[in-house]
């Protein structure tokens, strides 16, 4: 068993993070809310990193590289629909959505879009315009055509999984910002990090973030080797855990940063607002849990005891 990322992927992850930080990090994302040029520049930064040469559907190395790139995108709140473009079908970006309330993140960007729901039903889409929302500022309401065929189930699974890696990046970055804050912020004559209540809260968030990262690595490492039913459950499991971990860690970050964390000059505020679209969409974590129920009965949700002896 090897639980660490391969060296070349870890190196690519470091390079990608450095490049996207140089692009401007969450503060560039904030600027992009009012300046569309930033989103095109974000695409250029991704292109410089070779993002659009990655073939996530047929190369496991490319998929892993895409995962850590998504992680870097999440950590910097890069304002670009990377997952949707990596999962494009015939040149049209693929958006996952809930047909009851279709929304596309960055749906106002030029180019073709198609949409799919979690059952893999495919739709043509007509995006409208942005609504200047505080939460999910790049979300665009859309109109769907009647069902128009299907997309492969594996595409839905890859989409959910790569989106989860974006959440992993955001979670880790929020934890890091929180860490930096509590070791430097003085209250009652000492750093916040010397108060046990603060230390325990950070420890719980750190355990949650570590657990999510391990789950993300595990999920992506076997996405091509497990049966389709198990792969789909794996993707739902990861997305559910990513959403709930993000809620916990963001809550911790806000609580420990105090009023500062609500201000857009703090990256926590930007990361929170910009990650909400991944945490809440295409469906809530409660709906994800509901979708996992059949897997518990039919063995799709693999455990140590769900079938013949497995690793």
């Amino acid at each position: 068993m090897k639980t660490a990322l391969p060296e070349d992927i870890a190196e690519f992850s470091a390079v990608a993070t450095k490049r996207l930080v140089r692009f401007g990090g969450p503060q560039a994302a904030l600027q992009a809310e009012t300046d569309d040029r930033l989103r095109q520049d974000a695409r250029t930064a991704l292109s410089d990193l070779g993002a659009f040469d990655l073939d996530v559907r047929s190369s496991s190395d490319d998929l892993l590289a895409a995962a850590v790139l998504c992680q870097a995108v999440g950590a910097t709140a890069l304002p670009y629909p990377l997952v949707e473009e990596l999962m494009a079908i015939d040149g049209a970006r693929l958006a996952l959505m809930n047909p009851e309330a279709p929304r596309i993140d960055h749906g106002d960007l030029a180019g073709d879009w198609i949409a799919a729901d979690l059952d893999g039903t495919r739709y043509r889409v007509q995006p409208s315009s942005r609504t200047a929302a505080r939460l999910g500022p790049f979300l665009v309401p859309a109109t769907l055509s009647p069902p128009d065929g299907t997309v492969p189930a594996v595409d839905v699974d890859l989409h959910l999984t790569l989106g989860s890696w974006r959440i992993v990046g955001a979670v880790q970055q929020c934890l890091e910002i929180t860490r930096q804050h509590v070791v430097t912020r003085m209250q009652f004559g000492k750093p916040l990090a010397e108060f046990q209540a603060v230390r325990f809260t950070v420890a719980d968030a750190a355990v949650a973030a570590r657990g999510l990262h391990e789950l993300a690595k595990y999920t992506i490492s076997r996405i091509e080797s497990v049966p389709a039913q198990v792969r789909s459950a794996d993707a739902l499991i990861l997305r559910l855990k990513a959403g709930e971990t993000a809620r916990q860690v963001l809550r911790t970050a806000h609580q420990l940063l105090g009023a500062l964390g609500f201000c857009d000059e703090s990256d926590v505020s930007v990361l929170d607002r910009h990650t909400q679209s991944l945490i809440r969409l295409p469906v809530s974590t409660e709906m994800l849990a509901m979708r996992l129920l059949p897997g518990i009965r039919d063995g799709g949700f693999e455990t140590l005891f769900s079938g013949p002896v497995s690793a």
Partner: protein
Amino acid sequence: MDYDLGTDAVELRKRLRDLISTHIPEGFLGACTNDPKDLATTESFCKMLASDGLLALAWPKEHGGGGGSVWQQTVLREEMWAHHEPRGAQYMGINWVGPALMRYGTAEQKARHMSAIAAGEVIWCQGFSEPEAGTDLASLRTRAVPDGDGWRITGQKVWTSYAQMASWCVLAACTDPNAPKANRLSLFLVPMDRTGITVRPIRSMLGPHHLNEVFLDGVEVFPDEVLGELGDGWRVMREALAFERVGIARYARCESLLDRMQSELGDNWDELPESIRTRWVRALIDLRVARLLAYRAVSLQDDPSAGAAASAARIATTTCDQQVAELLFDVLGPTALDSGSSAALHGAVEDHWRYAQAATVASGTIEVQRMLVARETLGAHG
């Protein structure tokens, strides 16, 4: 990156499940019950494991062990705990007393104890905690006063698991009250039938044998019974406990209980309230995460970050234990408190709930684990 435990580990899991289904009676809930047959089951099972080289699987072959890989050891931990630890109290001798002897024991001590532990012939207990020193073990008060060539030990130990059934104890005592805290303690390998040792069981919600008091009244110990250097007990104790750093594979029993409960419910599982079923989903997710955190800690081995990784794994797995205990009680509703062989899963659910209450206390409290994770994340403030 791959999460394959390896063919040898997977084969071991199959073999252990076969052995357990053949030799462990249905409804077995471990050695700590009022039925002496359960202790006898563990004794015979340990001897069988020993004869197959599986009891001391983790030990090097030169010490009578099986030389198993860390992933085989992981599987052994999972399967044993999932099936109510059919090694009984012997896991303590295997998991840390033996490894501590390998590192610190004299040739005579190794010759005397190692083969007996590997053969499944002896139960050890751990005389560490005291009424005034639980987590803060460096503050132990039990005194070893020089007497002739050796010492006489007087004091009291508490929470000592298996003390009634153990034939040997690793006993911590203060040999120099004036030394710096880190150099006050020494460890002694003491037979439990030595004059001056009295064991009193403590009635508890955990069940029999889990908790005992051990009174030490001028117990005579000898120089050849010191484990490691005199005054070095605190370091030996910490390093010995680190052999168990990943801790019990509690997630494995939780997954097993949920699987067995689902089988028992059959189609009625679908009739459970939706809120219960979605909690079930979340419990299984959290158990998967706990298992992966444990695997991460194992894979780090001697890496300096392994300690915090193990603490993270412990926090995850012990909280899962309690989460699953509450979930299963809510599944059972009005029959949750029933116990014994006629209760759900032959009483395993009720047994699990009781034992899970100690999960975040035993072998290093969750507060200590949080302190260790915080130390790695935030540095040594506070």
